[in-house]
C-alpha cells in the first residue's frame, strides 16, 4: 500500500510537465524542489537537537563552491556538484568540531555569528573569485552530451525539473536510510536526551558532528542546484534571514520525520507562491506566526497530526 502511494506520487510528479506547460508553474516547482532538499538538510540538524541558523550559509558554500568550480576552473557541473557537496560537508565538519561541543543557545549563537561571518567574507574577500557584493552572474546551465545518443540541455526548465525531482528523491532515500539505521536511532536518542545517551557510553559529540556533516552534504546540493537553476548568486541570498522560511517549513511539516520537511515545504511554498505573493511583508509575518502557533499547539507538525488525532479519538 505504501509503495503504491509512493509510485503514484512519482508518476504524478513525472507527468506534471505534460499536464501543465506553464513556465511559471514549472519554475515554482523547481524552487520548491530545491527548498525541499534544503529543508531536509535543516531537519537533519534539528534531528540531533540543534537549531542551525547558518544552514543557509552552508547552502551558500555549496552554491559558491559549485559556481567557482564551473566558472573559474571550468569543471563540468556533474563533477562540480558532488565536489561542492563534499566541500560543504567538510567545512561543516570543521565548524561542527569547533562549535558542537556547545549546546542549545550557545550553538545557535555560533551559527548566527558564522552566517554573518560568511556573508562578510564573501562580500569583502576574494572579490576576483567570488564577485563581492554583486555576486556571480551568468552561471551556466548544466548539459549532458554522451556521443550523439544522449543530448540533454538543462537550460530548458522542464529538463531541470526532472533533474531536481530525481535529486529530491535521491535525498529522501539517503536520509531515510540514515534515519532507519542504528546511527539514525542514536540521532533521535540524542535529540530526546543527550545526557541519557552519554550515560550509556556513546560519544554524543561524535554523532552530532556526523549528523551535521550528513545534513550539510544536502545543504551543499541544494546550493549547487540553486546557483545553476537561478543563474545568479549574491552573498545576501544566503544571509541569516533566508533560513527563517525553511525553519517554518520544517516545523510545520514535523521535526525529525524525513517526510516532514517535504510536506511542510510543499504546503507553505504553494500557499505562498499562489496565494500570498501580493502581501509582501505580511507573508513573512505570517510565517513567523505559523512557526509560533505550530510549536505551541502542534509541536509534532502536520505529518503527525492525523495519527495523534486518531489516537486521541480512540482514547476517548
Amino acid at each position, binding site marked *: 500500500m505504501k509503495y503504491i502511494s509512493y509510485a503514484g506520487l512519482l508518476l504524478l510528479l513525472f507527468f506534471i510537465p505534460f499536464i501543465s506547460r506553464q513556465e511559471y508553474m514549472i519554475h515554482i516547482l523547481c524552487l520548491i524542489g530545491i527548498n525541499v532538499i534544503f529543508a531536509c538538510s535543516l531537519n537533519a540538524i534539528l534531528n540531533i537537537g540543534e537549531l542551525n541558523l547558518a544552514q543557509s550559509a552552508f547552502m551558500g558554500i555549496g552554491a559558491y563552491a559549485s559556481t567557482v568550480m564551473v566558472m573559474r576552473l571550468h569543471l563540468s557541473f556533474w563533477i562540480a556538484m558532488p565536489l561542492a557537496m563534499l566541500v560543504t560537508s567538510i567545512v561543516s565538519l570543521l565548524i561542527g568540531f569547533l562549535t558542537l561541543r556547545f549546546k542549545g543557545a550557545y550553538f*545557535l549563537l555560533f551559527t548566527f555569528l558564522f552566517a554573518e561571518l560568511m556573508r*562578510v*567574507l564573501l562580500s569583502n574577500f576574494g572579490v576576483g573569485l567570488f564577485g563581492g557584493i554583486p555576486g556571480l552572474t551568468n552561471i551556466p546551465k548544466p548539459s549532458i552530451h554522451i556521443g550523439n545518443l544522449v543530448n540533454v540541455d538543462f537550460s530548458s526548465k522542464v529538463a531541470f525539473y526532472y533533474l531536481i525531482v530525481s535529486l529530491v528523491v535521491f535525498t529522501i532515500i539517503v536520509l531515510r536510510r540514515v534515519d532507519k539505521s542504528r546511527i539514525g536511532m542514536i540521532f533521535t536518542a540524542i535529540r530526546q536526551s543527550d545526557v541519557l545517551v552519554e550515560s550509556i557510553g556513546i560519544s554524543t559529540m561524535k554523532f552530532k558532528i556526523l549528523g551535521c556533516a550528513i545534513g550539510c552534504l544536502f545543504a551543499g546540493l541544494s546550493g549547487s542546484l540553486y546557483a545553476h537553476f537561478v543563474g545568479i548568486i549574491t552573498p545576501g541570498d544566503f544571509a541569516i534571514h533566508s533560513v527563517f522560511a525553511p525553519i517554518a517549513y520544517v516545523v510545520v511539516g514535523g521535526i525529525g520525520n524525513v517526510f516532514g520537511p517535504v510536506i511542510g515545504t510543499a504546503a507553505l511554498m504553494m500557499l505562498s507562491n499562489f496565494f500570498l505573493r501580493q502581501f509582501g511583508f505580511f507573508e513573512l509575518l505570517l510565517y513567523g506566526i505559523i512557526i*509560533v502557533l505550530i510549536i*505551541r499547539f502542534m509541536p509534532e507538525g502536520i505529518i503527525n497530526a492525523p495519527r495523534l488525532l486518531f489516537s486521541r479519538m480512540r482514547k476517548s
Partner: protein
Amino acid sequence: MDATILAQGALNGVMLGLSYALVALGLSLIFGIMRIVNFAHGEMFMLGGYITYYLFGVYGINYFATLMTAVFIIGLLGMILEKAIFRPLTNRPEVALTSLIAAVGLAWVFQMLAVIFFGEQDKDIPTVFKGIIRLGGLMITWERFAAILIGIGLVLLLNLFLLKTKFGKAIRAVAEDKEAAALQGIQVARISSLSFGIGSGLAAAAGAIIAPIFIVSPSMGGEVILKAFLVVILGGMGSIPGAMLGGLVLGFLESYGGLFFSVPVMSVITFILIILILIVRPQGLLGRE
C-alpha cells in the same frame, strides 16, 4: 593616537557596554529561572526604542515618564509572552529546542510588525540632554554622560532588588534550585512570570536609553540580541557582575576596534575570540561551574 581620542573611545565603550549589559541581564535572568533562551529579547529593546520615539520624540512627553512607560508596557508584554507561549513549552519534552524555535519565530513576528506599523526607515529622536561637558581637552556630550548614569542607576536598582527584597530573594532561590524553592512555598510560576517581566522591562529601558543617541529601526533588536548573547557568554550565564564585565569588554572592543580595524576584519576577530574564550572558559569569565 592622542590621549583625547583614547579617552573618548573609553567613554563610548562604557556607554555601549552598559546598554549591552542591561539587555544581557534580562536575558540572563530569564534563562536563570526558566532555562530557556529568549531569542525575542532583542525585540523588547527595539519596542522600547519605538515607544521612546513616539512618546518622547513625537508627542513630547517627559523623558523619564517615557522611560517608565516603556519599562511598564514591555514588562507586561514579557509576562504575557511567558504565560501564553513559553511556560506551556517548559512542561513538554525537548523544551530547549522548541522554546528556541518559538523565540526565533516571535523575534521575526515583532520585527515584521515593526516594519509594517512603524515603517522600514530609520527614525531619529531629538536629543534629550543638550550641551557638552569639558574636562581639559576631553569633550563629552551630556547625552552620553546621562546615558551612562541612567544605566548605572538601573543596574544598581536591579542589584538592590535581587539582594534585599522578598521577591528578589525568591527569584534567586528559584534560579538556584526550582524544586527546593517550591518546597519552601515559593510560587515558581509567579516568579517566572515576574522575572520575564523584569527582564523584558530592562531590555526596554536599554532601548529607551540608547534610542535618542543613535537611531530606531526595526532591525535594531536583532543586532543587539547578538551583542547581549556575547556579553552573557563572556561574563557567564546568570552572573550580574559577569554581565557588567562582559558588556564593558564588548563595548571597549567595539569602540576601539572601530578605530583600528575595518568592519569585516572585526567580525572575523570577534568570531575567533569568542570561540577561544569559550574553549578556555566555557562557563564565562565570572560564571560558576
